[in-house]
């Protein structure tokens, strides 16, 4: 039950963020779905299976990045258009804010530990996104290279 409510709220929040980011109208619902899937994977791994925040973020991002790449192929859009709203529920914006808030309120130890958690979580998300997009880019680069050799007779990629 809890998972269903969080799925719905993550769906709405991601769609609202897609509007904030001025994403094209026809992909709003898909954006919402991708964000919600990422968030549900994240909370079920973190809260129910006891994964650390880093791994939960990593696998959540992996799920949403794979979905984004698939949707990118279906809708003929760049994958970024799906990934950037999709990672919104996961990104540790709140952590960065809380760390800064603690630091300006003289709590350096607490602030730095929150900021470090935020940095590792961001790293997990960035690694997840880069991993999936690199996998898909390998195919694209091979295609590009063939094209360039055909039309310009040289390999510039």
């Amino acid at each position, binding site marked *: 039950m809890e998972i269903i409510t969080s799925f719905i709220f993550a769906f709405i929040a991601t769609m609202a963020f897609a509007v904030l980011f001025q994403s094209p109208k026809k992909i709003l619902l898909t954006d919402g779905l991708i964000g919600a899937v990422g968030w549900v994977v994240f909370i079920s791994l973190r809260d129910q299976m006891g994964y650390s925040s880093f791994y939960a973020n990593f696998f959540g991002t992996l799920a949403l990045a794979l979905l984004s790449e698939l949707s990118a192929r279906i809708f003929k859009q760049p994958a970024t258009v799906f990934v950037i709203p999709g990672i919104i529920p996961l990104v540790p914006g709140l952590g960065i804010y809380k760390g*800064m808030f603690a630091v300006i309120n003289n709590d350096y130890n607490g602030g730095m530990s929150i900021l470090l958690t935020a940095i590792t979580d961001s790293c997990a998300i*960035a690694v997840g996104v880069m991993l999936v997009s690199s996998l898909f880019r390998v195919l694209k680069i091979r295609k590009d290279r063939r094209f360039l050799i055909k039309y310009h007779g040289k390999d510039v990629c």
Partner: protein
Amino acid sequence: MIMEQAHENKMTRDETLKVALMVGKILLKSGAETYRVEDTINRFCIANGYEVDIFVTPTVIILGNEQVDSFNCVSRIRYRTTNLGMISEMNDMSYKFERWPMSYRGTMAWLEEKLKAQVPYGKWKVCLASAIASASFSAMLGGNSHDFIAAFITGGIAMLVLKQIAGYRPSAFWENALAGVAIGVVALICCAVSVQCTMEKIIVGALMPFVPGVAFTNGLRDYMAGDLLSGNARIAEALLFAASIAIGIAFALRAWVLWGWDLWK
């Protein structure tokens, strides 16, 4: 056939560079990643038969090549927003570079139009979206129904304040700081009106549209792609924005503690 068609609209070197710089400018202003800007410019120049070296950071695009007495173009970018629709359009364009159908004038006019075009969602829709996002986040992070409504109001008003101030073009630091003050003040008022509201849940929900989580993650992605300077710039920007919001909210809360209770009574 394709080569002939390409030959008719073939651009000179200066024209190619101007169009490439313009495309890069539009992409960077729409908040594209560094590698995407470099890749698109590179594709365009190669499609027209020129090899260039490109250096892109969030604030500048530099085009040049390795010859000593050769061309060099610089474009300085001052205001950046996030506009995924524009990134998508430019991406569509980049697939047509090899058989680009328009002449130089037509392309420049089209790009100028894109640069000046209105965003698909206006001010009020963005404020509504911000309100909805704030409310959903406060529910996701464990707020009750009172927090949900309070976060809805707070997030909407804070985004409205930011949009109104953005018209005067101050630095982004002050925009975010004043949005933070607005969040603090409205959240305090909501807490004073309803006893069931919790201060923390409202603030946590309402500042979600302003915190730079995506900017921070994009900075790390730039690092991993090897764009070290852009990564530094983006992470510094994210920390600065987080600090500015924190300063705004802390100011509002501290001012309320010092003088607010007297005013309320």
